[in-house]
């Protein structure tokens, strides 16, 4: 029974992901065509400093890129290559897009995962302690603290920290992504808002969990308050935080543009920012498809992780 329900659930999800990817791929493909600029012109403009483009060069490039074929033929060709992870070459750098992606993704995923883990380590205890006595002093203080974190812009916190820790104290490098020290400031800045949101989520989840009947039953078996918290509270209270973690991970892997630009980190955000400034169509197309595919992947992994943590989810999920 469980297995069948699970399979139907997985199959349904899979179909939805496929359809989404297909639609998104069409939208992504159209990006260079919707813009005001002709793709061939855009390429040449990205490659040359000279603003007066040679008409012959434009024509040659159009033929080379197959831009004279019908849109559908071009799309199918692009899709076919995309399925083989071939997204062409960046207009600006002439490097293969997939190679650029792999490098950028390595950097960004390290940045994002570190920031989110840091956030979780801080947020879960904070949220839990706040939940133990809701609407009291500590809880109110935590609420103000999370509101404060949410209101701090990254493009202010980043430079301020650089000002203090790099320029004033000289402890940490102000930019780059080389060694452990250079990762500290960007990770901290990137974790500020996740800390706030994770704390809010874990607090409200924990308020509910701590009043659940099974917590009372655990006390009834003789567990102390803290034993109950550790054995039965945290695990259940963590579930919504895990969901939130994956949402944030998806979102941050798409590129934490501001932080990467501030600290000069060669990740996805920086790549995208550059691509947009240069009107680098292949990069933009690929990143749209990539972000959606990644989101689907992380979503699936989260579902599996969630099911491992909470066995009853396999049945309840489908009904919802």
């Amino acid at each position, binding site marked *: 029974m469980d297995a069948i329900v699970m399979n139907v659930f997985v199959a349904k999800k899979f179909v939805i992901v496929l359809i989404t990817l297909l639609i998104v791929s069409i939208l992504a493909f159209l990006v260079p065509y919707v813009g005001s600029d002709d793709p061939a012109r855009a390429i040449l403009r990205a490659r040359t400093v000279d603003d007066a483009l040679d008409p012959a060069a434009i024509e040659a490039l159009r033929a080379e890129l197959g831009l004279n074929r019908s849109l559908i033929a071009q799309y199918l060709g692009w899709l076919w290559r995309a399925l083989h992870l071939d997204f062409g070459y960046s207009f600006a750098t002439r490097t293969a897009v997939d190679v650029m992606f792999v490098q950028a993704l390595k950097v960004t995923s390290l940045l994002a995962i570190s920031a989110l883990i840091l956030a979780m380590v801080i947020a879960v205890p904070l949220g839990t302690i706040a939940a133990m006595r809701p609407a009291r002093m500590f809880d109110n203080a935590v609420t103000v603290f999370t509101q404060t974190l949410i209101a701090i812009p990254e493009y202010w916190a980043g430079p301020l920290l650089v000002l203090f820790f790099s320029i004033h104290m000289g402890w940490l490098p102000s930019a780059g992504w080389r060694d452990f020290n250079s990762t500290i400031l960007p990770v901290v800045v990137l974790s500020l808002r996740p800390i706030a949101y994770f704390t809010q989520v874990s607090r409200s989840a924990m308020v509910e969990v701590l009043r*659940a*009947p*099974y917590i*009372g*039953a*655990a*006390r*009834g*078996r*003789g*567990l*102390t308050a803290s*034993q109950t918290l550790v*054995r*039965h509270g945290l*695990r*259940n209270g963590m*579930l919504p935080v895990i969901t939130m973690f994956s949402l944030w991970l998806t979102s941050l892997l798409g590129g934490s543009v501001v932080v990467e630009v501030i600290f000069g980190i060669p990740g996805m955000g920086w790549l995208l920012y550059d691509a947009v400034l240069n009107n680098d169509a292949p990069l933009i197309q690929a990143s749209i498809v990539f972000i959606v595919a990644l989101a689907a992947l992380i979503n699936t992994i989260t579902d599996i992780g969630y099911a491992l*943590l*909470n*066995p*009853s989810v396999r*049945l*309840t999920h489908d009904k919802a």
Partner: protein
Amino acid sequence: MTSIVLNAKKEVGAVQLAEPILDIRNLNVGFARNRLIAIDALDLTVRRGEIVALVGESGSGKSMTALTAMRLLPVGAGIISGEVRVHGRDLLALPPSAMNAVRGREIAMLYQQPKIMLDPTATIGRQIAEPLQIHRGLSLKDAWPHVIEALRDVGIPEPERRAMSYAHQLSGGMAQRVMIAAALSASPDILIADEPTTALDVTVQAQILKLLVRKRDEASLAVLLITHDLMVVSAIADRVAVMYAGRIVEEGETRAVLRSPRHPYTQALLRSSLLAAEEDGRLYAIPGSASAARGLSCGCRYHPRCQAARSLGIEERCRSQEPSLSTASASPGHQSRCWGVQVTAGGMQ
């Protein structure tokens, strides 16, 4: 069902001599916020090897009694006065930290909804092991054989496999068996079962009751069985206490109370129960509601609903003076809290 389990009842008389395990004395519990006295001067004793049933309509304070004994009161509830003695030691006087050593070790509890009382993210084996880990200092590994044994003992097939399953994979009856295994794994002396079979099918009900009786017999367990089902009472209880609006209104040996109920409320309860329906085929509903009784500060709590008071013509006394618990029949320990009983027995007035 009744007949199957009835045989299991202990011989009357033998029980009376046993030592009291749970002894509640003059307990008063209330909610400050809505000005409600939930338990009103309650006295109740459960002896070793005895099953005492606590019956009454819903809202009469049965669960609050259980939670007070466990010292796991809901928010807003406060203990006004009284004692809950286990082995002669007053639990209400213990510091909160000392209660951890008592719960699960001396006093354990079963609940109406076993499935939601189990942590959905922990295997049932781990939860059964907890009392052993905490009270016996065993590691999870050392506790595991006991867990399997406990599961087998409460009648769970394939205990090795079942120990690894989760609450949502169990039926209600299975979950209640698991709760019994968990409650009894550190062999407490008194088990408080708060409507343990109310949410279960009739056949499963009988099995769970049989299991409770067996555990009582094996371990000389004292059981406080909370229920509003007189069928259950007549099936397994040695003694019964009837609760109305936070007070005990009648108590005594099960046979005496059910055969010759003296308090008008007990009589009404009996008439409204399935025990009575078996005879005339129709169910009787007690007129009025118990909520009015909560606001009363003097007189008999039952008088707004009591027909006997009217037919006996003692309404004035019932309204103004509270009757005390007094001997109701020749059966030892049979007492009731009713002016009418005292009038007819003592020939007063």
